[in-house]
């Protein structure tokens, strides 16, 4: 059975662990189709002052990160033509909003993302992508790796 997986990556230990976990799963390599995704969150006004160079550098940095992630999966035996990278340059209000939108646009069966354990206060102030997605999504398997 064909299976399409969306892996959301950000600059975090849990993201790297999520990627490693997926790379070690015994997939049937012909049947699995993986998209590696990074989403930019809309910056606050003061961050905008960092300028276009900063934004360009971030975009280039993330394209490299996604390519590296693809190489990791390929080195574990997955087929390069079945692994896609997707860097969304349009910023979303929150990363969760971006993931929800991308899931609507694609035909993914599984969503994979890293999850950092947070204190209650931290969860309130900073929000929690996994919790938001669990509340908002239906019809997709969510693999949140802590």
């Amino acid at each position, binding site marked *: 059975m064909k299976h399409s997986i969306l892996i959301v990556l950000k600059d975090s230990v849990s993201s790297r662990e999520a990627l490693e976990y997926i790379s070690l799963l015994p997939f049937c390599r012909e049947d699995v189709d993986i998209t590696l995704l990074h989403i930019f*969150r*809309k*910056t*606050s*006004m*003061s*961050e905008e002052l960092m300028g276009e160079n900063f934004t360009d550098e971030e975009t280039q940095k993330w394209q490299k990160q996604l390519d590296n992630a693809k190489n990791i999966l390929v080195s574990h035996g997955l087929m390069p033509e079945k692994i896609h990278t997707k860097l969304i340059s349009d910023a979303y*209000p*929150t*990363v*969760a909003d971006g993931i929800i939108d991308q899931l609507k646009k694609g035909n993914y069966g599984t969503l994979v993302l890293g999850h950092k354990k947070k*204190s*209650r*206060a*931290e*969860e*309130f*102030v*900073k*929000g*929690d*992508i996994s919790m*938001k997605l669990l509340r908002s999504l239906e019809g997709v398997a969510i693999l949140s790796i802590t």
Partner: protein
Amino acid sequence: MTARHFRDTSDFYSIDCGDKIIVADRVLTVTGHERERRFGIEDPKMWVKRAVEDATGVKKIVKLSFLESFYTTLAGVKIRCFRNPDKEGQILSLVRDHPLFMQGEAYHDPKGNNIRIIDIVRGPNFFNYINTIRMDHRQYFHDVLPDILKKIIKAFEAIRFLHINDYRHGDIRNDHLIFQRSTGNYVWIDFDYDYSATENPFAMDLFGLGNILLYAIGKGFHDLYMITNNTDFYGKLQDDLEERDFSLLDKWRFINLRKFFPYIPKMFNDVLMHFSKRSNVYYETIDELLEDINRCYYTFFA
């Protein structure tokens, strides 16, 4: 002595009483500085001038560009806060003629500094207003709170208007809500603060609204120090306290008011408890909070 004229407001410290600020075609004479009045301290805010507009003789507040930035820590969570004069200018345009927001116009001086000329909202702030109500809590809860809550709901709906337009107030406090004497409205002031974006972009605004609601329902804040040191008023409440009765982000602030005021309906108390350490579920949007407060209001007070 002839008055000094300032078109460039970069060095706002040097602009003093008697000086004139010239912006667009408006001339304002500085009469003093606004002050931050909190915790019994009065600090002059040198970037906020009291002034009189020469053409009309009307008193105004002139807010000059001060790009302050700092980190604050709430319950161990580090948050980057900063002043954002342009945001306040944009909100002033958005809320033009909205009766629940301070009114004013934003300009830029020749050096690009944002200058906001603000109409003064006359009346006590919400902190002082509640403080001046002299009656016991039970009578306050039944006789006075219904009207206050009705106005709070309107004020919260005004914040919703900001949120649906992708703006945060940024500094929701009980002294940034003014009981405007001439209209009876609760009017929001001072929206130049902002904080770094997170996955819960309105969290700090919601926390501020929770504090205002707590202040209104409790007829003031009640903290651990007060509870343990004023046993004449609080009796043996201190023997019945648990950590989860207190605020999620302010560990001394008592949230579980029903423990002390048992006539507060559970439905009301449950709204407050969303901001306590007991809660596993938090308000993510102002719509969720408004829905719950409205339900309380219409169940018990309407």
